């Protein structure tokens, strides 16, 4: 198929603001979370969506998986309007877009073992009971977890392991598009690196289309081929990831880049007390 796998056409999402009284008196206004966004995602693209709180990046994700509906505009999945597909709640379209959430702790049922969580997801896809266990083990292996994880409950896993289970569960549906909303921002740096490397390998091996939502430009540079920079509900800049980061055209992109911690190299005026620190920088 040559067209974009996912397309947004003039999508706006607004929420009413103010209480009942304000609305009765006609004083209510709308908060525009996403403002006339048009974009196309090609099959196999690994797209980083960056922006700060209030930029609309998470709204974009929930619209794309069908958790909310746009106020105006249209979302197309392989050329077909998502609004029409959504009339069939459990239709095959739902399998095709899967999501991984930021907080792996609250995204898994605390009373279900990992094996059960995966088996139920496989059942949704119509995998026969007899092969569910084998497939569950294969999924765990795919995300780098051993079969010893299967009988455990979520709280017995580390944050990084839980995030891998979340990923395995999303992959159990054999999605075409994976949307990951800040999947590593609550993890320690060492575990963050493990999950980024894993996502990078999976997109290559499975040919997944990935929408990776993040506020961390350095992480996006490591993982993504395309970047979309958002601010206040609008796309302010987009393009090939390395080009945009090397030659940012929009002042906001430039500001985001200059805000990334640079370590010793980022020191402006070295303090006198750090004399030993400055001597070895050059």
């Amino acid at each position: 198929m040559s067209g974009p796998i996912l397309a947004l056409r003039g999508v706006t999402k607004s929420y009413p603001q103010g209480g009942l009284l304000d609305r009765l008196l006609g004083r209510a206004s709308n908060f525009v979370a996403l403002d006339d966004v048009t974009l196309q995602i090609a099959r196999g693209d690994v797209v980083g969506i960056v922006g700060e709180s209030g930029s609309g990046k998470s709204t974009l994700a929930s619209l794309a998986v069908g958790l909310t509906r746009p106020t105006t505009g249209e979302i197309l999945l392989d050329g077909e309007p998502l609004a029409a597909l959504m009339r069939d709640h459990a239709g095959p379209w739902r399998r095709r877009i899967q999501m991984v959430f930021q907080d792996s702790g609250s995204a898994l049922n605390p009373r279900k073992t990992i094996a059960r969580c995966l088996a139920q997801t496989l059942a949704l896809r119509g995998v026969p009971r007899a092969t569910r266990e084998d497939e569950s083990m294969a999924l765990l292996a795919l995300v780098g977890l051993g079969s010893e994880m299967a009988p455990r409950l979520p709280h017995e896993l580390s944050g990084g392991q839980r995030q891998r289970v979340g990923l395995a569960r999303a992959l159990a549906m054999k999605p075409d598009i994976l949307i990951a909303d800040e999947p590593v921002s609550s993890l320690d740096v060492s575990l963050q690196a493990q999950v980024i490397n894993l996502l990078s390998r999976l997109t290559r091996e499975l040919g997944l289309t990935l929408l990776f939502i993040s506020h961390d430009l350095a992480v996006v540079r490591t993982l993504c081929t395309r970047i979309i920079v958002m601010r206040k509900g609008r796309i302010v800049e987009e393009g090939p990831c390395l080009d945009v980061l090397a030659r940012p055209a929009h002042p906001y992109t430039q500001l985001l880049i200059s805000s990334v911690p640079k370590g010793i190299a980022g020191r402006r005026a070295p303090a006198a007390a750090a004399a030993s620190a400055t001597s070895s920088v050059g």
Partner: protein
Amino acid sequence: MSAPLLRIEELRVAFRGTGGLIEAVRGVDFGVAPGEVVGIVGESGSGKSLSMLAVMRLLGATARATGGRVIFDGEDLLAATEARMREIRGRDIAMVFQDPQSSLNPALTIGRQVTDVVRAHRRVSASEARRIAVEALERVGISEAGRRLDAYPHEFSGGMRQRALIAMAIACRPRLLIADEPTTALDVTVQAQIVELIAELRRDLGLAVIFISHNLHLVAEIVDRVVVMYGGKVVEDGPAADIELAARHPYTRLLRACVPSLHGPLGPLAAIEGAPPRLGRMPAGCPFAPRCPQAADACEREMPPLATDGARRIACWRPQ
């Protein structure tokens, strides 16, 4: 180096568990000179926040300091009375936390919360306290500070709230500011502003700062010295440039390598396999040995001592 302002000696902190005490800080030892900025870096569970809560005597009911000394300006804080600690907190040592939202009282104005701190420590009139509060808020870059005194926390953005908390912290001109992940809950552009503010305060007020973070890149930008903690122990410390660019402990090296950068080569990130040790399940030897690519038999058997090497200290049997 001049005499330290704060000297932490062999500090131990334990939680009360079902099977007795579970040690989480296992003999931490370092100092902070007047006006010095020290970064403490480590993953969750490394004991970095717990050590600082022990310094402030804010451990709460479930944990307590079980050994060591915390000498601030010649006085052992672990032996001080609670009344004495109330004098010291806020006046001599102040602390800001990760989540500015939950550190402020939502029902009181910003002005009331800053003046409360001032009047708790200084015998000043209400109008003088207000003047000091305005000055502190202006100092941290809050514009129209006089008008903002009457605002409530929910009227401030996350970055403004963190600024207000820093204003509360510096209002009584403390000599030491402890900042526990002060930027983790903030957006990147706001994070950069807060880091810049802390560097400015240190420069202008001669404040000593302990900056706790899990991001070595972030702290290296503003601190003089970095203390790296793992498994409740200091595993390496030294001048910021040495630690960031030429670390000798395998953990510190990996900690730097696993953070992606905006420059440098692309490709898989260095990853530290496995997870940090869990409380109550600390290995007998070096706590990092189970994840360490350099580990040998000796590492699993015995904890290496924190050995001095010029300006730095390293606890490793096989430093690089």
